[in-house]
């Protein structure tokens, strides 16, 4: 992991440690690549949100930057028609399940979905897909924060924070497929779970699903 190598991202020469994941190298060098689920410390990336696609010279399909180790001489393009197409579709798919009411959202202005839209010139509405109706279930049982599942993009960063940083284990993924969601054990209210209200999960949330209550 130590050898320094030179790679090219969008024509720019960048020095990085061999084996480091491309996504973090790019972000540290001020090259933006959309991403939601990536956690730098995670040894085996989740690679679930499917937003960080890039094209690497010599490979035919775009690859996810969060899983791609840096190799000497690698030439990377963050914007190609194939990349843009996948990102556009993944983004719209995520929006179709995300309750879009930015005006009322506590994350308005600092939301990572909004950032992706801004950076990539994508619209924050659906034009090909119909919204998937999701029941509005808000768990506001904790004193300091609330969880609005209708805004959750299932990136899992809160689960990482809860398990690996806080070491609590109050929340996790449950159910499968389209029913996958973040819950406490046995679907209890957060207040009934081992949650200590440390707030780390709220800070990890890239959208307005977990948010601190006002005052």
């Amino acid at each position: 992991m130590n050898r320094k190598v030179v790679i090219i991202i969008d024509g720019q020469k960048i020095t990085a440690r061999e084996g480091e994941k491309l996504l973090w190298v790019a972000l540290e060098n001020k090259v933006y690549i959309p991403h939601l689920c990536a956690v730098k410390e995670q040894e085996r990336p989740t690679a679930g949100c499917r937003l960080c696609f890039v094209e690497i010279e010599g490979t035919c399909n775009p690859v996810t930057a969060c899983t791609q180790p840096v190799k000497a001489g690698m030439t990377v393009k963050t914007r190609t028609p194939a990349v843009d197409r996948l990102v556009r579709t993944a983004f719209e798919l995520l929006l179709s399940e995300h309750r879009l009411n930015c005006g009322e959202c506590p994350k308005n202005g600092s939301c990572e979905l909004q950032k992706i839209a801004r950076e990539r010139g994508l619209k924050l509405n659906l034009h090909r897909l119909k919204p998937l109706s999701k029941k509005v279930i808000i768990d506001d049982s904790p004193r300091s924060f609330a969880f609005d599942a209708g805004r959750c993009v299932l990136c899992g960063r809160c689960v990482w924070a809860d398990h690996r940083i806080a070491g609590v284990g109050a929340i996790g993924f449950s159910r499968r497929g389209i029913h996958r969601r973040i819950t406490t054990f046995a679907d209890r209210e957060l207040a009934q779970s081992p949650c200590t209200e440390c707030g780390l999960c709220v800070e990890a949330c890239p959208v307005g699903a977990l948010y601190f209550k006002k005052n």
Partner: protein
Amino acid sequence: MDVSLTERAYIKMKAASINNLKYLEDKPVIRVGTGTCGKAAGALRIREAFKDELTRKGIDAGVVEVGCMGHCYAEPLIIISKPGFPSLCYGKVDEVLVKRLVEDFLINNDPCYEFAMAALEPNDIFPTFRDFPRGVYEEKMILENCGFIDPEEIDFYIARDGYSALADVLNMEPGEVLGEVKASNLRGRGGAGFPAGIKWEVVRKAGNGMKYVICNGDEGDPGAFMDRNILESNPHQVIEGMIICAYAVGASLGYLYIRSEYSQAIRRVNNALRQAREKNLLGASILGSAFCFDLEVFSGAGAFVCGEGTALINSMEGGMGIPQHRPPELAVSGYLGEPTVLNNVKTFCYVPLIMRKGADWFKKTGTPGSPGTAVFTLAGKIAGPGLVEVPMGTTLRQLIFDVGEGIPRNKKFKAVQIGGPSGGCLPEQALDIPLDFDSLEEAGAMMGSGGLVVLDEDDCMVGMARFFLNFTQQESCGKCTFCRLGTKHMLEILKAITRGEGDMASLETLRELAEDVKTGSLCNLGKTAPNPVLTTLKYFRDEYEAHIKGKCCPSLKCPDLIAYFIEPDKCSKLCNICVGSCPVEAIYTRDNGLKAINRDKCVKCDNCLKACPPEYSAVIKVSPPGLVEEREREMK
């Protein structure tokens, strides 16, 4: 020194097995197929009936339970081997036939040929399975012993040279064993066709630490049952293959991952493992050599995605059955982070044969790129459904029209869905492509599990795409965006189209989504799920357009786009059968005695159409439903 040791141990063991089976010599032996298919058809009752009848008549004959030989449509199935006669196979056996066979055949030497299906050995009297239309093409390698040996008694397998390959292998260098498997170009039978030898080599070279060998018996494809069949009918062949693999790669522990629904397979494999351990074919210093290896069954909870390697490993480790990004491949970091060989049940089955008969023997069958045989389950609109084993490179046309005996009821072939829910629908013009890993992938389908569903003119291709996507959408683990949400939106669009609510823009969205889910998904479930949609869009676009533009289902299948109509000039006013057949009282009698259907009540169950006597055939289906009103206006 070792040479003589394992070989001597084996020779002794084989002699003992043959001796143990002596009690079956010189007397009639009745083999009853008690695979899950046989049991479901009542094989246990038949076995008891034989035992009772033999006791009653005081006849000395052996009754042996065997697995399934692939003629599942004819269960309960038995084989009678009586000295002086060829072994004869009888299908659809009931208690009455049991009595007759005991009386006429066992006592009076009349084999009741009128009830026999086939003989097993060539003879001058009765045709064998080779003389069946499928016999010309079928070539049994890994299914050869299935249905003929007792899977619960290890002696049967050993008496047929079982474990002799292992005894030989233990005298070879592991590298030599690997070399032979590599030379055979054996490709994985779990779907993707990755060369087994290359996978094994990675594991072999991965140092001297802990390594695992795992057999993938998850078999989640709907309609596929060959892996279950093999595990139930000849478990030792899989076990022997796994031990040889372990020796070649240097593993000391292995697992058979079998879904818990396969209770009989799990029971038989556990029993086989116990017997193998007793004979020192598993455990410490196998057959007196220095090699130690043991196997256990891991019973999976039965999710389609758990057949995917990384999800399988997650579920074995106690996590959720959810795939992970590759690399690392399992061969580098698999079970508990150690190098792991994961192969399909069938892949392991070829290994003892290759080691016994040589890589060159193996390569004589099949195509250069895909040597050996392929096992298919034939289903759908086909006259001879069942399990078949044919050489790779057999064409689809031969498989469907010769081996499977074509389409029943003179219907026209429309398409074949090959490779299970992640495979593709191929049309008439693709029938001459040879069945091997590469040609199928080129055509947009895949070998997959070897499931093969034949579709005729009555099948709606949009409905088929919806059916298969419904399966993959439900089986998606939900981890990645494309598979979780992409398949959901695709399914919603397909549902709308089959309801007549689609538009051309949504058809375009469907195509775009299908392509993006294919390239963008994390694992091969998502990457292959769009195949049925993409292939039907490619080959049957006209059907999609008919649903959208004409609100018409050309195959008269989609319930929302059809209506039933009783033709006045065909209806016999005196017959009431259709009225009685309707479960919702939608059919009424007009003043003039003619029958008619109340469309608001009709649930489109098809009962009246089937009930109307063929001499009238007055009930018809039409699409779009509006045609009924047109007809009714004409009538007035």
